[in-house]
């Protein structure tokens, strides 16, 4: 331990690693339909750092909101989620732009997901005699059925990464690309899963999840140990760059809104 004046940037938490990795995937000039929580934080971070023309849309009818640091929404429909929006519309209208094909990214969280990217947020156990009732789809099913590129962000734990989900709330590749086509899911595709351990993609032939890159300091065996199914591995597994001080400071400022973390970010947001 060394004594230093002023706060030193703490090591990134697993949640921060995940959120920052997710934010880097969002390209400028696109439209992202983000779920509340980590996907929204990643989207706001991307917009503030490298994608100023990213348009964020939120389920409650909010198009283009700018979040107030320290007051990120706790639910997708509330006033905080509408702050700074350039359009507030009805929920059906907001989703129907998605069905029309206007949204580049659909960005959701997941309670439980399987090797084909099928997501369960409904029931753990038999849906007719469930062990646990979860909150449900909300807009997730609609997002994965229509938004062009579907991205899923979740903590990497064996209980979340299961061989087969108990219930498909939001379909991924079902049991492979052909089953997805047969089900009528022809408008879009699942693209990536971002976790605190790794970045996963989908194998085009089989529709199965594939390890593409590791979070800094994470080994391949860490990932396999925390995955409840046989994960495909890319020929070349990259290592993701560690979060920069700028990314960390900005993310923490968004979360807590305190001025102690804002000194670097002010410059960032005013840069061309």
């Amino acid at each position, binding site marked *: 331990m060394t004594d230093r004046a002023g706060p030193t940037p703490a090591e990134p938490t697993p949640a921060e690693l995940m959120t920052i990795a997710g934010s880097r995937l969002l390209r400028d000039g696109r439209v992202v339909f983000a779920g509340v929580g980590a996907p929204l934080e990643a989207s706001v971070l991307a917009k503030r750092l490298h994608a100023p023309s990213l348009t964020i849309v939120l389920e409650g009818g909010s198009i283009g909101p700018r979040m107030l640091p320290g007051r990120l929404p706790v639910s997708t*429909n509330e006033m905080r989620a509408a702050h700074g929006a350039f359009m507030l519309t009805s929920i059906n209208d907001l989703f129907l732009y998605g069905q029309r094909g206007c949204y580049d990214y659909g960005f959701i969280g997941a309670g439980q997901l399987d090797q084909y990217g099928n997501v369960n947020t409904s029931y753990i156990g038999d849906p007719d005699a469930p062990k646990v009732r979860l909150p449900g789809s909300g807009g997730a099913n609609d997002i994965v*059925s229509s938004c062009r590129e579907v991205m899923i962000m979740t903590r990497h734990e064996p209980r979340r990464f299961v061989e087969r989900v108990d219930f498909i709330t939001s379909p991924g590749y079902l049991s492979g690309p052909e089953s997805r086509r047969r089900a009528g*899911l022809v408008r879009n595709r699942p693209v990536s899963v971002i976790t605190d351990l790794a970045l996963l993609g989908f194998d085009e032939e089989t529709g199965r999840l594939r390890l593409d890159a590791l979070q800094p300091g994470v080994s391949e065996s860490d990932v396999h140990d925390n995955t409840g199914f046989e994960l495909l591995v890319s020929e070349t597994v990259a290592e993701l760059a560690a979060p920069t001080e700028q990314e960390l400071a900005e993310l923490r400022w968004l979360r807590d809104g305190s001025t102690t973390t804002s000194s670097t970010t002010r410059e960032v947001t005013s840069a061309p």
Partner: protein
Amino acid sequence: MTTAADKRMTLAEAAALVKDGDTVVAGGCCYSRTPWAMLLELLRAQRRELTLARNLMCYESELFLATGAADKLISSWVGIGLRWGIPKVFREYVERDPSIYEEWSHLSFGMRFLAASMGMPFLPTASLLGSDLLGRTPAQEMRCPFTGELLVAVPALVPDVALIHVHTVDAAGNAQIEGPVYMDVEYARAAKTVIVTAEEVVPHEAIVRRADRTQIPGFVVDAVVEVPFGSYPHECHGRYEADFAHFDAYTEQVIADGEAGVHAYLAEWVEQAGSFAGLLDKVGASTLLEQRRRALDLVAA
């Protein structure tokens, strides 16, 4: 639907328009612009065997189940918000008997009301395809008669009653909403009976001056009730923010005591408070003003 010029009445009179066994849809979304005063009034009136529908449900879900006011819920998501998770008693009820809960995706739920609001028996959508939600709802796969594309047909849902909380309304029911409208316009057009509660009842001319902001015409409205802070402890866009401390206290009580915690909450906030005005008195002016101040931070000047 009625064209009477003055539909103003009390919460109790409006509650009499809801019959046991009715399908009731509540407006707003999760903890935003919830017709909370009207929902509590239905509990006070001891309505029974209702089917309660709402796009995203907050903890009114378990208030209605635990009292027996509702025996079935229709929604796409039930939770209080990230910080509080899923209402515990709701969870216990559905884990005991999943048939009391009909689950949709957000858009497919909304399109049921959109269909009804258009006077159509169904609408097609690309949602629900390939999911396990499809087989557990009355929705059906269909082929487009023109392109052959595989789609899902969702049946119209015509509720007996819609409960909507708005910002301003005139005595005839012409209603204006600020901020997101959620699904309230579809609900109001779809329902057989529409009860509008409002932060303010204003003169007809005040509505006329901003006619472009009228979302619900009076001819679909049956009852108008003025209830300032009528969504509290939930939020009303630009008027007051949700009272998260109230949610904290509620969830602590229910996590500790389960269903008994729900009944204790209702004893305190419905029975002992005596009326919604009594509830607001109990909350106190300083809390209400603080929630108002917090809301003003969030809306454009």
